[in-house]
């Protein structure tokens, strides 16, 4: 047996050994997070204060010039203004839309027993498919002359006219070619694609609501709607907050669908579908305005941070009430 005097030293050595192993294990991952995540983020801040040049020594400090340029662009109602306005519109349509439909589908799924897995898979399938390719399919369906939607509208109008109800007829719609309809049309694609994510999250949340609570409420005479609104909904709150934050962040960063659904006029028509991410991409990689584009990403960073913090604050206050 070891003598009492050596025991503390040995224990110390063991814990030091464990710590050293831990640092060895974390060496590569920490280098990754520091050099390829945190450092580039700080670099974006830095770049937004300098004119761009390949040689770092030739970059000239210009202070807040690019931020003033952004302010001027917003004030003049330029593309940045449109991107921000669209961001708000996408947010207002996509986030409540996919959360409400997602919750509704999850409640339906939770109430059935058979084919639950099949239904869940069908609703989730669009989420795993490449948004770029999916956007092309939707672009074809939205086609003014040859698309599914207008052909259905045309067939419907013919049908009701033959029935003698011409007032029910609907004219073909311009969809992606109209500055008014393009954004809702893209938003519908985004909702379709991300709906499954919401369904899966909400379904998991619903399955976590204990059956006894429901039965107790039922015995107390609560009807189905009251049971949902006063029992299920409050218990789902953490899941709803998570879903709100995740879908908001995804919506603020929209890019793939917008680029591909109108590839020849990205963000168009007339900037009506433009997003911040696309605007940044155009400025940095098509016009090579690196410093200005970096400033745009800094703006996006703060928007996402403020919105996320606000959402967490507001929803948490609701829990306390």
């Amino acid at each position, binding site marked *: 047996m070891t003598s009492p005097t050596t025991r503390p030293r040995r224990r110390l050595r063991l*814990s030091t050994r*464990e*710590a050293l*192993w*831990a640092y060895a*294990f*974390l060496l590569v*991952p*920490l280098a990754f*997070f520091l050099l*390829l995540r*945190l*450092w*580039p*983020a700080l670099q*974006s801040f830095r*770049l937004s204060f300098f004119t761009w040049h390949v040689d770092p020594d030739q970059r000239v400090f210009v202070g807040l010039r690019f931020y003033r340029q952004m302010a001027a662009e917003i004030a003049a109602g330029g593309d940045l203004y449109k991107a921000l306005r669209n961001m708000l519109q996408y947010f207002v349509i996509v986030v409540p839309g996919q959360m409400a439909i997602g919750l509704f*589908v999850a409640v*339906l799924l939770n*109430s*059935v027993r058979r084919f639950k897995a099949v239904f869940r*898979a069908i609703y*989730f*399938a669009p989420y*795993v*498919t*490449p*948004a*770029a*390719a999916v956007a*092309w*399919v*939707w672009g*074809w*369906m939205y086609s003014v*002359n*040859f698309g*599914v939607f207008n052909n259905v509208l045309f067939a419907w109008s013919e049908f009701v006219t033959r029935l003698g109800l011409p007032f029910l007829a609907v004219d073909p719609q311009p969809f992606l070619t109209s500055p008014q309809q393009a954004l809702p049309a893209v938003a519908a694609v985004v909702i*379709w694609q991300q709906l*499954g994510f919401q369904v*899966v999250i909400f379904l*998991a*949340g619903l399955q*976590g609501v204990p059956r006894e609570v429901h039965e107790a409420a039922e015995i107390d005479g609560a009807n189905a709607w009251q049971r949902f609104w006063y029992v299920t909904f409050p218990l789902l709150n953490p899941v709803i907050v*998570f*879903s709100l934050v995740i879908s908001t*962040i995804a919506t603020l*960063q929209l*890019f*793939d669908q917008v*680029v591909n659904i109108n*590839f020849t006029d990205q963000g168009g028509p007339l900037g009506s579908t433009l997003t911040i*991410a696309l605007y*940044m991409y155009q400025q*940095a*990689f098509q016009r090579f305005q690196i410093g200005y584009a970096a400033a745009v*990403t800094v703006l996006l*960073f703060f928007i*996402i941070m403020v919105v*996320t913090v606000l959402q967490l604050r507001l929803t948490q206050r609701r829990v306390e009430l």
Partner: protein
Amino acid sequence: MAAVRTAAAAAPAAATRAATRRRRFDPGRALAYLLLTVGSVVMAFPFAWMLLSSFKPLREIFRFNFWPEVWTLANYQEVLLGTQFPRWFLNSLVVAGILTVSVLFFCSLVGYTLTRLRFPGRNFVFLLILSTLMIPTEMLVIPWYVMSTQFGWVNTYWGIAFPGLIPAFGVFLMRQFFATLPRDLFDAGRVDGVSEFGLFWRIGLPLVGPGLAALGIFNFVGNWNAFLWPLIVAKSPDMRTIPVGVAFFSGEAGTAWNLIMASSALAIIPVLVVFFVFQRQIIEGVVLTGVKG
């Protein structure tokens, strides 16, 4: 004794069966099935339409008929033989493959270290990784691109892959899994003289199999679909991944919607197949990162 149990169980079982039979006429549930079916048709329709259009010759694609009058494979032939689609497929496979290996190894190693090893600064490391989740990708792509041009990473597999080597969400997922393992297991291993790496590799990893499956497949699909960064860093046509290749090909195909639909189908169908095969793991990955992570 078995017979007694069966007989005793038979009566209530019959009663339940009768109850379920009665419940089958529940109008609420029937309505739920109806709505779910209608919704499923809406969800699946774009895929069906894409697939059917991809088998139509060009002259038929501009006429509105749901079912092709003439079925043709010419569109697929043209996309597969007349474009670099096979190369894009290979590129996507290589990039997503490299990343899957890296993600599985490093995310579980970090997850293990953060839960099973005690060392000063553990919380700091955790918070540091957590804080990187707040950084939007848009903010990183410009410095990544500057870096890639400096180091000659543009148009290389490494260049496309490096940003995704260790995703923070994967670290949290694996951390959850390792946190559920009993500490005694590792202490016992230590007493038996297993090395620290052996404790992770031979004792820890085999016990988090479901986590690895969920993370691996979910992450593979995510990398397969990635668009923004590959679009930026894969400049030459032969280095494009599938989503980028399809985007440019379709942009150049103009009104050849039959070819665009065939290329979209070739981009979408493989992921759908992977999804339906590994459905359980993928959905589990979403649930675990979402509800518990």
